[in-house]
C-alpha cells in the first residue's frame, strides 16, 4: 500500500528549481566579513528561528520552506534547534518587551561568526505594531541586523531568494546560486 502511495504522489518531483537570485545584500557586507569566517561557513548556514512576538504568519512561511516544493535543505540551509549550532539568528515579529531578554540570551549563546536576519515587516520596521507600548519595534533597534526580508508575511520564494543571496555573499560568490543537490 505504501509503495502505491509513494509512487503516485511522487511521480515527478514536487521540488521546484531554485529561484532567481538578485543581489540581496550590499557588497560591503561580504567585504566586511573576514576570510576565515567565509571559509568556515562555506555556503551552508545553520539557522535558528527566533519569534520575537510575531502573529505566527511569518512562522508559517518559514515552515513552508521545508516542504517538498521549496526543500530548503538542498541549498545547505537548515533550521537548527539550538542557538549553539546556529550561524544565523532569524528574527520574526515586532520585538515584544517580553522577548527581549530571551533574544539577548539566544544571541549570546551562538558561536561567532554570527549573523542576524529580520524576516517580515514586523521584524524589519515594527510593522503595524511599531507604535505599540508593548513592543520595541524593528529588530535593528535592539541588535545589528545583516539582512532584511520584508513582507507580511514574505512568501517562501522571497525568503529563499534572500537567504541564498546572503549565503552566496558569505562565500564570496555573489549572484551565484548554490547548486541544489537534488
Amino acid at each position, binding site marked *: *500500500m*505504501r509503495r*502505491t*502511495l509513494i509512487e*503516485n*504522489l511522487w511521480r515527478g518531483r*514536487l521540488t521546484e528549481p531554485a529561484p532567481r537570485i538578485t543581489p540581496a545584500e550590499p557588497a560591503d557586507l561580504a567585504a566586511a566579513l573576514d576570510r576565515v569566517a567565509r571559509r568556515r561557513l562555506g555556503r551552508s548556514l545553520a539557522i535558528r*528561528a*527566533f*519569534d520575537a*512576538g*510575531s*502573529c*505566527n*504568519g*511569518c*512562522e*508559517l*512561511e*518559514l*515552515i*513552508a520552506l*521545508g*516542504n*517538498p*516544493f521549496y526543500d530548503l535543505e538542498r541549498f545547505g540551509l537548515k*533550521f537548527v*534547534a*539550538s*542557538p549553539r549550532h546556529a550561524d544565523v539568528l532569524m528574527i520574526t*515579529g*515586532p520585538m*515584544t*518587551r*517580553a*522577548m527581549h531578554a*530571551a533574544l539577548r540570551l*539566544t544571541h549570546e549563546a551562538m558561536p561567532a561568526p554570527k549573523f542576524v536576519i529580520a524576516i517580515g515587516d514586523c521584524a524589519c520596521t515594527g*510593522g*503595524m*505594531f511599531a*507604535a*505599540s*507600548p*508593548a*513592543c520595541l519595534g524593528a529588530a535593528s533597534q535592539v541588535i545589528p541586523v545583516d539582512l532584511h526580508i520584508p513582507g*507580511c*508575511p514574505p*512568501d517562501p520564494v522571497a525568503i529563499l531568494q534572500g537567504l541564498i543571496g546572503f549565503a552566496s555573499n558569505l562565500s564570496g560568490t555573489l549572484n551565484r546560486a548554490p547548486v541544489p543537490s537534488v
Partner: protein
Amino acid sequence: MTVAPPIWQQAAAALATGAAVFVALWAEPAGDAAVVHLATRPHGSGAISVLSLAAEDGHFPSIARHHPGAILMERALCDLHGLAADDTPDPRPWLDHRAAYDFKPALGPGIHQIPVGPVHAGIIEPGHFRFSVNGEAVVRLEVRLGYTHKATLGLMRGQTIEHAARLAGRISGDSTVAYAFAFARAAEQALGIAAPPRAAALRGVMAELERLANHFGDIGAICNDGGFPLMHALTAGLRERVLRLSAACFGHRLMMDIIIPGGVARDLSADNAALLRAGLPDLLAQWRRLFELYEKTASLQDRVTTTGRLDPAIARRLGCGGYVGRASGQDFDARRDAPYPPYDTARFVVPGRTGGDVDARLRIRMAELDQSAALIDNLLAALPHGALQTALPTPAGSTTGHALIEGFRGDIFAHVRLHDGVVVDAMLRDPSWFFWPALETAIAGNIVADFPLCNKSFNPSYSGCDL
C-alpha cells in the same frame, strides 16, 4: 447591558452551574475608571449577551472565582487595565512579565521540574512550559504565556474601522481570514449594514480555504510529532497547494486583508473559481490515500490513541469549541449553531467524537476536510453576482456589535464599539484561551515525550491569546 454587582454575581453563578457558556471577559477604559464586560451564551446557541459593570475604585467581583475557565482572561485584563478582581483564586500577573513568577508547586518524593521555553526547539511561537514530572510521567503542566503580547486591542482604540480590521487580521496569522471575518461582522452590526451576498459567499470560500490549509498542515505536523514524518512531507505539499490556489484566487497566500468591513477587497474571477473547483477534488483524492495510510500504520496509531485525553466534562466546563471540543463530546459549531452568511443557507455536517484523545482531534479535522471542500464547491456553484462592498456609514454616537465566527480552531468572538466611526473598544477572543487550560489537564499522566504530540493536537495559538 450595564448591571449592578448582584446581577454580575448571578451571571457568574450561572457559569458555575454550567447553565451558560463563558465567551469572554475584557475591560474598557472609561475616563479615569474602567468598565468590565462579560460575554456569555446559552449552550448550543450563539445568542450572546454582554453584561457590563463599572469597576468601582479599580475593583470588580471575580468571575474566575466561580468559573475557572475565566482565570486567564481575568488576569490579562487586570494587567492591561490595572484592575483587581476581588476574591480571585489566582492574583498572579499574566501579561506583565516584570516581576518574578511563582509557578504552582507539585510536591512529593522524586518530583522535579523541567522548564521549557520561551524559545522552543522548532519554528513555533514563544511560551514557557513548566513541567513537574515524576520519572517519565507529567504530574503537572503549567503554561506561562504573554511573550507575544503586542497590545493589539489597545492599538485599535482611536483608530478607523479599516485600520483596526487590519490589526484584527494580525492577531493570529494562521486565522487571519477568520479574524478579519469576525471583526468585519462585528463592525457591520455596529454600523447596521450587511455585506452583499457575493461578498458573503467569497468570505465563506476564503474561510474554508483557510481551514483546509491549516488542517492539512497540522495533520501532518501532528503525525510528525508522533514519529511519522512521511505524512508531514505529503500533507505539507497539500497545504502548499491550497496556499497557492489561495494566492492565485485572492492575491495573498494567507488571504490577509481581503475580508474588510463592508465586504471583500477583491473579486474572484470566473477563471479562478473554475481553477478552485477543478483543483480541490484532486487534493482531496490525494488526501484519501493518506487517510488510509493513517489508519493502517500501527506504529502511528499506537502513538495517537489514548494519548492526551481531554475529559468531555472538562471540555464542557471550559467551553472548549472547535476540534478540541468536538473531539470531546461538545457539539458546537458557530457556522451551524450561530449561523451567519454564507453558512445560514449552506448544508454541511459537523463531525463529533467523544474519545478526546489525539486520534479523536485528528479525526475531527480529517472529517472536516471533506466538508470544507464540499462547502467551497457549493458556494462557487451558486456564487451570487453583484457588489463586493457595502459603503460604511458613520452613525452618530456610540454603537456596538459582536460576532461569533468559526475559524479553523474554533469559535472566535469579536466585539467592537464605535463612536462617530472610530473604534473606542474592541475584544477579539481566540478559542485557544480554553485550549491552554484543557491541554494542561489533558497532559497529566502522559509521558513528557508525548507533550509535543499532545500540544500540536490542540495547537493553541500563542499570539491569539497574548493579544
